[in-house]
């Protein structure tokens, strides 16, 4: 059967070509650069600031969709109510009684959640391009699981963790056994990669179409994960991963509710005048309130600045002094901006201002 090269490709974008290249292809390398900046110049505590300013707002974005959109609330009301009622006491009990279990469960759930988010975006790419051929969903799912699983088994950052856990369980493996497991993992991934390519070629012969954006997106995402997992720095992983995961999720939710608003005229709670800046501002406010309510430290807002002040050999601040310095700076900065603002927004001679008087 003759193959039309153009006929096999169907471009589809989640938002637009420009937005997709920026947020789904370029963001992971950008996140890596930011992570290297953290690694090279900021104290370890600075990673907590990424949790405050990216991870917490990404939770907020999820709340906006689930609890703020009428449609979602009506559709999943039982789960939206029962979920927290079951989960929160479980976490309380787990923290008090089985902290190691809680840590392991959360780490694994976080990995599953991360891999499913990228898989979900890949599915959206197929949906948007109309390239959701038979078995593609299943092949993509297996590819995602094997890619991610292989990373957890073979990358030093993760192998160190599971090797240590096996010692705790009394299931310690010797070096040879670990190497065999890792080699097996690579072989399984390699074998499936061949099958996957065969599936793609067979699809092309059948006349199925493919969205190259999906593959670029997956390459960029897994490129980030694989790269940081071979570095000797958990900080790099935390910062780069949180930025990629959080920012992409926040944008996806915003675009989703915006599209829903366009089609149904309904906006989420507190967002009747939906705009990206308002959405992000509310996310920032949520992050601040959440952090303070949960007893979070002020230094987590500052990317380690407060602590750096203590380390400065000339200033030689105590923690108290550094915190005071930070607070005083914030108050003075707000005042200065207020003074400057008032110096130009109250010109009575200005006809536009007169209209408001």
């Amino acid at each position, binding site marked *: 059967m003759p193959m039309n090269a153009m006929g096999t490709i169907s471009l589809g974008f989640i938002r637009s070509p420009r937005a997709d290249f920026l947020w789904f292809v370029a963001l992971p390398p950008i996140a890596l650069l930011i992570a290297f900046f953290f690694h090279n110049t900021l104290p370890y505590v600075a990673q907590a600031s990424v949790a405050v300013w990216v991870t917490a707002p990404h939770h907020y974005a999820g709340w906006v969709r689930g609890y703020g959109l009428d449609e979602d609330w009506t559709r999943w009301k039982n789960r939206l109510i029962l979920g927290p009622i079951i989960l929160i006491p479980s976490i309380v009990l787990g923290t008090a009684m*089985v902290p190691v279990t809680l840590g392991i469960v959360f780490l694994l759930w976080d990995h599953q959640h991360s891999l499913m988010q990228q898989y979900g975006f890949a599915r959206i790419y197929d949906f948007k391009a109309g390239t959701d051929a038979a078995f593609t969903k299943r092949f993509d799912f297996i590819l995602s699981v094997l890619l991610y699983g292989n990373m957890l088994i073979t990358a030093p950052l993760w192998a*160190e963790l599971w090797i240590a856990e096996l010692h705790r369980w009394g299931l310690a493996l010797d*070096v040879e056994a670990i190497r065999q497991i890792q080699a097996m993992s690579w072989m399984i991934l390699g074998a499936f990669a061949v099958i996957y390519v065969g599936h793609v070629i067979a699809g092309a012969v059948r006349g199925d179409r493919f969205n190259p954006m999906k593959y670029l997106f997956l390459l960029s995402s897994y490129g980030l994960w694989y790269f940081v997992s071979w570095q000797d720095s958990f900080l790099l992983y935390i910062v780069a991963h949180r930025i990629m995961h959080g920012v992409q999720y926040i944008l996806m939710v915003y675009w989703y509710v915006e599209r829903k608003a366009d089609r149904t005229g309904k906006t989420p709670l507190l967002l009747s005048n939906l705009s990206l800046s308002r959405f992000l501002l509310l996310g920032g406010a949520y992050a601040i309130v959440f952090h303070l309510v949960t007893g979070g430290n002020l230094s987590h807002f500052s990317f380690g600045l407060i602590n*750096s002040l203590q380390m400065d050999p000339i200033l030689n601040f105590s923690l108290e002094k550094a915190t005071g310095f930070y607070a005083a700076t914030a108050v003075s900065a707000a005042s200065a901006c207020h003074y400057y603002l008032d110096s130009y927004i109250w010109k009575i001679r200005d006809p536009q201002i007169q209209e408001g008087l």
Partner: protein
Amino acid sequence: MGWLRAQKVILLVYIGGLTLAAFELNLAQFEPDYLIKSESLLNPETNIADVSSELYPDRAYSFYYRALQASMCSGPGREAQPECQGRDPVKPHEIRELIEHSLATGNRSNEMAMYNYAIVLLQENATPELVDAAIAVWRVNYPQSKNLDPREMVREARQTSASGNRTGRGESEHRTR
């Protein structure tokens, strides 16, 4: 079936979590500091320090595990412990050098490497500048740490050791975790 399918993730999380919880409640290994005890670090058949060092010799945790291993076999009476016999004797400054190698990798996710580095410097009577710098690095990276100031920790350990010696119960000041 539809319900099970819809709830499969949460069900898996709970089934897995409850199974692990049963182990954690019943097995001593689930103490949070189990991995830095001698069973994990000095077992002659297989231990985490030797396995890590062979698989990933240049990584921060491998150096750190080896430092812990060395600290368990150094000091009065420790070389004679059964789990330390058959291991090379710990060289002077070996613990310090191993922690320095660990920190030199740039990995700052291990608070105890920074903390214990300050302790080892104090134990080796390093210059106050070196000790202060090590403590400053630890504090800046982990400002919310609940660990005692290393100087305080070493002072307490020395006092305990001195009173132990007076009562005939010698105790090492090593508090390497």
